[in-house]
Structure formats: structure tokens, C-alpha cells
């Protein structure tokens, strides 16, 4: 099977992701006790070799963080979710989550925020396709002066396809932007295509 998604499959994936974002935003809104304005996440399939250049410009000039978390589901669904964001942004959402920044290490705060964003979103995706996911502990790949492009290059090397999801959360009085990358290895791409085909056949 081809590793390129058909137009129908792409549409299907975009819709699943839109709904997953909606579910995640609703959960976050309840949890944070504020309104979350969600924008439709722009999704794009890129080959993993293209990734570092895409993010180098956006994340090289400021203090930024890159956190990775593996996910594993049924039907051969697996991959690695990477959340990229600027640290300045992280401190805003940390304040909302009720972190007292002096009593907690920055690394812990980063992994917590990423894990919340990743798992709420992917759980929303999994529910729609009657799947469920388990997660590995989040790992900070690079933060502050760390070279984001280099860290991504090293990670992306083992993956074939990346689903780039631009996520932008806007909370009342706060805006929080981040990028999420779902890195998916070759055989899992085929499995995802099968899942999408099955869904398309159902309707």
C-alpha cells in the first residue's frame, strides 16, 4: 500500500483531528475553568526529513522546549508525539494550571503541560476510532539553549512520516500556541491507512 494518503483518507484524518481537538478543548476548558477558543488545527503530512527546517526558524530565536511522548494503541497504531512550544508560553499556561513556579522544577512543568495536551488530544482521536492508547512518560528532548533542530533531526531520523498538527489554544486573556508533531513509523502509517479505509467504508 502506498505511504501517501488519498484525498479521502486525508479528509477523514482532518475531520477526526478536528473532533479530537474539540473534545480536548472542552476537557481543558472544564479543567482550567476558562473558555478555550479553538482554531481548526492545520494538519499536514510531511516526510520526517523535512521537519527540522520547518521548525528551526520558529523555535531557534527564543527559549523553546521540545517534549516527546510515545503512544501505543491497538491495530498497530503507534508513534511518538512531540510538542514544541516557546517557554514564555509555557509559563502562562503553568500559571493557569496552578503551578507555583518556584516550588517546581521547570522540567517537571514542561513535561506536565505537554503530557496534558498530548494525551487529551490523542485520547479524543482514539475514542473516535474505537481504539485506546497507552503512553510512555514524557521526555524533554531539548529546552532553553538546546538546539531544537538538532534534537528533532535525531528523533525524526527513525520515522518515515510525520503528521504535523498546528495547534493554537486561546484561553480568555491568554493565548497559547504550540505545534504538535505525530511521528509515525512506516508500518504504522499503513495501519493508520487501513483504519481510515475501514471508517470510510462504514459510511
Amino acid at each position, binding site marked *: 500500500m502506498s505511504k501517501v494518503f488519498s484525498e479521502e483518507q486525508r479528509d477523514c484524518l482532518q475531520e477526526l483531528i478536528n473532533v479530537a481537538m474539540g473534545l480536548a478543548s472542552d*476537557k481543558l476548558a472544564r479543567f482550567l475553568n476558562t473558555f478555550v477558543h479553538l482554531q481548526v488545527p492545520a494538519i499536514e503530512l510531511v516526510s520526517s526529513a523535512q521537519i527540522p527546517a520547518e521548525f528551526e526558524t520558529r523555535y531557534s530565536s527564543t527559549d523553546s522546549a521540545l517534549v516527546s511522548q510515545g503512544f501505543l494503541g491497538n491495530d498497530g497504531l503507534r508513534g511518538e508525539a512531540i510538542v514544541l512550544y516557546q517557554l514564555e508560553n509555557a509559563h502562562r499556561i503553568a500559571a493557569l494550571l496552578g503551578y507555583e513556579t518556584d516550588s517546581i522544577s521547570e*522540567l*517537571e512543568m514542561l513535561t506536565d503541560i505537554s*503530557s*496534558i495536551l498530548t*494525551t487529551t488530544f490523542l*485520547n479524543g482521536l482514539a475514542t473516535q476510532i474505537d481504539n485506546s492508547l*497507552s503512553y510512555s*512518560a514524557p521526555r524533554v528532548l531539548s529546552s532553553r539553549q538546546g538546539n531544537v533542530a538538532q534534537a528533532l533531526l535525531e528523533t525524526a531520523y527513525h520515522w518515515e512520516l510525520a503528521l504535523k498538527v498546528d495547534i493554537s489554544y486561546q484561553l480568555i486573556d491568554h493565548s497559547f500556541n504550540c505545534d504538535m508533531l505525530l511521528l509515525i513509523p512506516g508500518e504504522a502509517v499503513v495501519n493508520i491507512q487501513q483504519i481510515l479505509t475501514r471508517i470510510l467504508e462504514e459510511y
Partner: protein
Amino acid sequence: MSDNWLTGPVLEQLNSGVLVVDEQFQLVYLNCFLQRHGSVQLDEVRGQSLFKVFSDVPEAWLRRKFASVLELQSPSFSSWEQRHYVIKLPHMRPMTSSSQYMAQNCTMLPLSDEAGRRYVCLLIEDATDTFVYQQHLQSTLQKLEHSNRIDGLTQCLNRRYWEEQLKLEVQRALRYQQPLSLLLFDLDKFKQLNDQYGHLGGDSVLIELSARVRALLRDTDWFGRYGGEEFGIVLTNTALQGAVEVAERLCLAVSSLAVTFNECSIQSSISIGVAQLTNTGERAHEVLIGQADVALYNAKRNGRNRVVAFSPGETEFLLKTTD
């Protein structure tokens, strides 16, 4: 909770801690691992508050974590690298670890029973081995870094690291407009010493003079071995006059007392060239070395065991060759 023939024994034998609390943080289950390590009996603590049974857990932190697990119905994690342990427990290799307590990687998972009641499961993995390896790695890296910076014989900075520091200090001095001076000095007649007392004799003089010089320097000065018997000292926040005074004290400290080697008394002296940073720009540190080197050359030519400060006029021809 553990009455199933398969999951029950596995949970009890598991080399990880499994703890379940309800939404009020009351203990519902503890596996054997936690009961043994924590010296508690499930029957005695079931229904009690987690914070009462394990009184030193970080309560506010754990409440927030559990709240996110329950509300978002998604897992939460904690790594020993950020928080050494969540529940203070002894570990099983007390002899070979520098920490008294078990390093823990924790996962918090949402659970529900048939009636829809919600729980949080805390999985605790012993990461003490990783912690120990990480510590060995850190100390090895530290030693490596040290040996990368230090000259083995004299315990001064080696040339590469010293030059890096010189460069940084020059940049800093230029940025904050502070004076900076450089001393370059040379052990006089080193070849003769080696011929007369052997290389070990020469080495012992180098070791002794390094120690005497170091004793007269401030913590903020950078003392490095530049070449065989040549040394450099970066004097931060010091103008030429002050640098010359330091240099004269160093000269005296070396020449006033002989070094004893194999019951021989070895008389030695040093010649010192001094220069103050005046140039700006990318190559300022190289120009400074060149100027101190010219002064050192003049100190040698003028009869050794003396201090010469660089003066621009008389040595212009030499500067050009070092640029």
C-alpha cells in the same frame, strides 16, 4: 481487587509499587511491593487517607496531579530526574548508592469500577539503578572535564582552556570597559636545569614554581601553562601598574628560595613580560599575547629574572610579525 488467579499473584509479585486511591484520596489497594517497602499492611490502612498513611508525600503536588488524571481521564507522569521520589521508600541496594531513598518513575492512571466510581492508580517503578548509573556518568564526565582543562604536571590550566578563558575575559573587559592585563613568563635557563639535574629535576622546579605563583594569585586570575616552561596569567580588572607589581612579587617568590630536589638545592628564576589590553576588535586577545611576548623577549634580553612592561614605541617591528 486481586482475587483473580492471574492478575492477583502477578500484582503481588511485581517488582513495582501499585497503589489505588478513590476520589477522596482514600487507600483502596496497595500491592505487596509497597506494603513491604513502606512497612504497612493493607488491612490496617485500607480506607485511610493516603496523606495520613504516607505522611511525607508532597500533598499539594499530588492533589493537583490526581485532579488532572481524574478530570482529563488521561495519565500523568513523574520522573526521578525531576522528583527523586513520590513516596519515601528505602531501596534494595543501600551499599552502592549515594542516595538513601528509592529513585522513582511514577505513572498515574485513571481507573473506573463497574459502578462507575473513579479511582487513580499510582504505579511506582524503582529507578535506583538508573539513578546510580547516571551518577557514575556525571562524576566521570566531571573528571573528564577537569582533565580536559588541567595540565597534568603543574596543575595549571592547559593551554587550550587557558586561551579560551583569555578570550572570554578580553571580551568581558571590553564590554564592561574594565582594565585587563596579561603576564607571560618563562623559567630562565630551563634547558641548563634539565641538563644538570635531569628532566625530573626540571619538572620538580616547574611544579614548585607553579605552586608558589598560584599562592600569590587571586581566585579571579587565570593561570595556565602556555608551553614547555612558559606560563600565562590573565589578571582581570587590573591595569598595567598593578600587573607589574604582581609580576615583581612573582619574580621574587621564585628567585628568593631554592627548590630542593634529590637533596640538591636548585636555584631558579623567571622573566616576565607584562601588557595591558588596549586593542579592541576580534583579535584583541592575540594582539595582547603578542605584546606580552615582546615584553617577555625584552626581559630575557635585558638579563633575565626581571619584569618588563610592554611599551608600544620601541618594538613596533616585532608586533607586525605577531599580527
